[in-house]
């Protein structure tokens, strides 16, 4: 199969990316926008957002990327690709210098330098990758492409032409005589280095630590008009070389190979992620890993799963708590209950992120995991609009939920967080039961965060998970979510007592 890209096996795979113009609806709910921003920070020029916004559902397409990730985790490969990326940055700097320059001979020279940097980068990548003997389809495909490219006539003549020109320019030495405000330029005629002679004369008075009176000169990116006139004169002294330079630059305007340019961009998809993963692992002590892919929801699990967006935000200031989750047999619904601010929503987000990042073919925030690729991900998180009309709010919520239920399939994942909170508990219970039954009928995987303990024992395929508190002080949350029947509301009383808000305490505090 001819190499196409390290992100997509075929142009068809990529077509969807080109058509998507916005992030999926659930991006903000699951804090995926923060993760993507965290990953791409500093690399905005590569325009990777669109690639991060397209989850893959074909297991082989996911595997294709996982292979590349594993490949890049080998030292030699990682170094080769990052060196190449750095060289491409240097090439773009030279192109930018060319754009900023006014004088023709300056522009041509910068363009030549850009070409030389490009040639060096491509040759370097070919050699270094070749030495690592890549195994992934993506990288070995790339290497084959590089081999063909570097041995092509077009590339070789580009390289040879550029190198010849550079040699010719390097050989130019010219004389400049400054007489008052006149400048005379002529070919160098072999005069001796005068500074060396002066130094030799006064050597006999040398002491050990002389003061340095030399001025430091900054190199200017742009040329002033005096230098430009000198350069003009030099060009007239060497008309052939400068004409050849100009022609070469004109001919080779499109020297940059499309596939290579694309690779430079796509490599950053992986490099940025791996770099961010390394930092998060170092800061939190938690691990990322490439998940196994399962053919169905059965056997889904994650070990020490955590919210990557939270980890990025808090860095090493607070410890980030990780939790385990698993689905045995035909379990298809996870109901998470427990105290407020106890980490339930974070847990739900982590579960969503786990699946989404897996669908990008990237490492997921868990030490080990097995996931089933989804064909659709639907979230329903409480929106913050302060609608005064509670009835209107409930209506709007029901419409959204209905839409969600209609679209879900048995390969879909639904995550709901505190649904129907704008109505009475009994209404909420009724509505929730209904919705969850429908979802269950479709075989969709659901994770529901709720204050309705009853849902935790809805049917045999329900997994109850509870946010725990510190047994010594119920006001302290551990942020650990464990598999357990729902608690009821025992914890609420203890907290109330602590703040003097139990009936007895309040009676004493308030005057009769």
């Amino acid at each position, binding site marked *: 199969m001819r190499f196409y890209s390290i992100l997509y096996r075929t142009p068809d795979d990529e077509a969807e990316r080109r058509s998507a113009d916005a992030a999926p609806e659930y991006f903000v709910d699951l804090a995926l926008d923060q993760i993507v921003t965290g990953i791409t920070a500093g690399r905005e020029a590569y325009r990777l957002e669109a690639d991060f916004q397209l989850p893959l559902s074909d297991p082989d397409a996911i595997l294709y990327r996982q292979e590349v990730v594993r490949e890049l985790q080998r030292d030699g490969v990682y170094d080769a690709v990052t060196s190449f990326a750095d060289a491409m940055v240097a090439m773009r700097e030279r192109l930018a*210098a060319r754009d900023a*320059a006014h004088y023709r*001979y*300056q522009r*041509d*020279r*910068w363009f030549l*330098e850009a070409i030389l940097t490009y040639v060096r980068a491509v040759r370097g990548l070919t050699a270094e990758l070749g030495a690592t003997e890549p195994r992934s389809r993506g990288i070995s495909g790339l290497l084959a492409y590089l081999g063909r490219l570097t041995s092509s006539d077009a590339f070789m003549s580009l390289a040879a032409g550029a190198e010849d020109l550079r040699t010719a*320019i*390097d050989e*130019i*030495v*010219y*004389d*400049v*005589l*400054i*007489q*008052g*405000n*006149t*400048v*005379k*330029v*002529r*070919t160098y*005629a072999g*005069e*001796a*280095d*005068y*500074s060396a*002679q*002066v*130094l030799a*004369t*006064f050597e*006999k*008075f*040398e*002491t050990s630590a*002389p*003061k340095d*009176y*030399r*001025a430091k*000169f900054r*190199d200017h*990116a742009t*040329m*002033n*008009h*005096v*230098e430009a*006139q*000198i*350069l003009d*004169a*030099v060009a007239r*002294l060497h008309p052939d070389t400068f004409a050849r330079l100009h022609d070469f630059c004109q001919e080779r305007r499109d020297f940059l190979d499309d596939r290579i340019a694309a690779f430079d961009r796509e490599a950053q998809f992986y490099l940025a992620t791996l770099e961010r993963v390394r930092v998060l692992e170092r800061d939190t002590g938690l691990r990322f890993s490439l998940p196994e892919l399962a053919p169905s929801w059965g056997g889904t699990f994650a070990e020490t799963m955590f919210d990557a967006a939270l980890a990025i935000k808090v860095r090493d200031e607070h410890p980030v708590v990780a939790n385990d989750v698993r689905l045995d047999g035909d379990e298809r619904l996870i109901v998470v209950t427990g105290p407020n601010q106890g980490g339930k929503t974070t847990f739900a987000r982590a579960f969503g992120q786990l699946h989404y990042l897996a669908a990008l073919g990237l490492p997921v925030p868990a030490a080990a995991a097995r996931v089933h690729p989804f064909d659709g991900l639907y979230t329903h998180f409480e929106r913050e609009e302060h609608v005064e009309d509670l009835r209107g709010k409930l209506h709007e919520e029901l419409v959204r939920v209905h839409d969600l239920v209609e679209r879900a399939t048995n390969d879909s994942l639904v995550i709901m967080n505190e649904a129907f909170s704008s109505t009475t508990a009994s209404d909420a219970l009724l509505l929730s039961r209904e919705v969850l039954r429908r979802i269950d009928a479709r075989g969709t995987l659901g994770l529901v965060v709720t204050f309705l303990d009853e849902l935790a024992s809805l049917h045999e395929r329900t997994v109850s998970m509870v946010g725990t508190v510190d047994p010594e002080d119920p006001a302290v949350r551990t942020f650990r979510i464990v598999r357990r029947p729902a608690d009821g509301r025992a914890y609420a009383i203890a907290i109330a007592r602590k703040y003097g808000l139990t009936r007895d305490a309040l009676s004493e505090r308030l005057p009769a």
Partner: protein
Amino acid sequence: MNVLLMDRERDFDASRSLPWNFDDVVADLGLSWIFDAMAGGDEVIDAVVRRAFAGSLTDVDAILYRQAALKDALRNPEAVRALYDLASSTVEDERRHYFGLLKDHPDTILRRSVEVMAMFAERLRALRTIAEQHVTAFESEAFDRLFLEVQTELDDTYLARIDAHLKDLRFRGGIPLSARLGPGNVGSEYVLREPNEPEGGFFKRLLTRGPATFSFTIPERDEGGFRALDELRDRGVNDVANALAQSNDHILGFFRALRDELAFYVGAIRLHGRLAAKREPTCMPSPRPTGEGRRTFQALYDPALSLQIAERTVPNDLDADGKDLIVTTGANHGGKSTFLRALGIAQLMTQCGLFAPAHAATLSVSAGLYSHFKREEDVNLESGKFDEELARMSDIVEQLEPGSLLLLNESFSSTNEREGSEIARQIVSTLLERGVSIHFVTHLYDFARSMHETRDEHHLFLRVSRSESGARSFKLEVAAPLPTSFGEDLYQEVFGEAPGDPEVAPAAPMLGREDGAPAEGATGND
């Protein structure tokens, strides 16, 4: 090029800091009189001789090296003076050209450096002339070496080369550079090229037909253009301006070192002159290694004292070979302290490579000279004085090593004689065991007597001699210590009999009653 007039191996460092106790030694020995006589108001000489005294030489060869140079200087004072003036004025003149050179453009640095170098070239020529005139009259290794080096290094060829460079470095024909094309084809690797080549040179080739030359001129109002041109010029002359400025620094360093070392000899010549004018004897002392324990003088005197008074001082002879302890006792104002000072000054002057204040002198070098003199201003202070003495002593002990010389003048007298003697005994005997040589002027009779009774052949006891008439002679003689208070005589006077007379029963102790009235049976003057 090095000066090496004061030391065979290295130039004298006039900026090194003085040792911690130097002020004490200067005050105790009255050295300021000597420094002032040497300097004659010249601050440079004052600083140099102070450091020379402080940086005592302990190597016999090093001392002889300097003595030889000193002999030359004493024989040729005008030549030395002329050299000193030349070096001094050169250093002064350079200072006038220097203002904030470091912040200037290379072009400015170059122009100033050319001026200074031109001045230096003239002085180097003058230096060579003096060297040529006087080389035959000087015999010491130090001066011979210097004169020879000056003649060889600063020969006509070399001086002509300097002149040629100076002419070229004014760049009257313009600044010639070569360059290559750097990134973006901006000129880089500017190298200054030789303006006047043997075959024709840069300028000559301009006038002959040859390869094309393209030129352009910056218009008058183009300030940006002039700035660009200035920077180009600066880049071109950067290295050579630096080279010239550094060379100037080097030459200045040479003249400064020359000035400093000659300052020492100028000062010595002056001191010699002052003493000779009073017909006080001086001699080149014979330095010996520490281990030999030599110390003999003929007609040793205190030169600092001599500089203060109109008359001649009273000299003393001394034979203290093999003695590590000299104890001097006797009546006050008898010349004890003066002699102590004379010994200290003679030691320092010898270890400076100077002449000694004596008719003849042979002495071993010491590893450091320390003085612990009674402080005059402390005389009326009550509490803490003994503390102060001991604290000072302790500081000195920190620095002592075998071979050190310690001068004690009335030390430990701020407490009663018994205690003072005990402390003195302990300190002195311990230090002697550790190889320190001690000269002690003291009234602590108990101490002096007990040391004398050891009959140690390495101890020497001197005493102020009094003539029959009781007049002071300022002469010292070798003699055992005498008790200074004449208690026996007084007792005799009061009691009418000598103390300890066996025929008289010891008197009962005089008791008093509580109300102060004498007890019954108490004797009195009946």
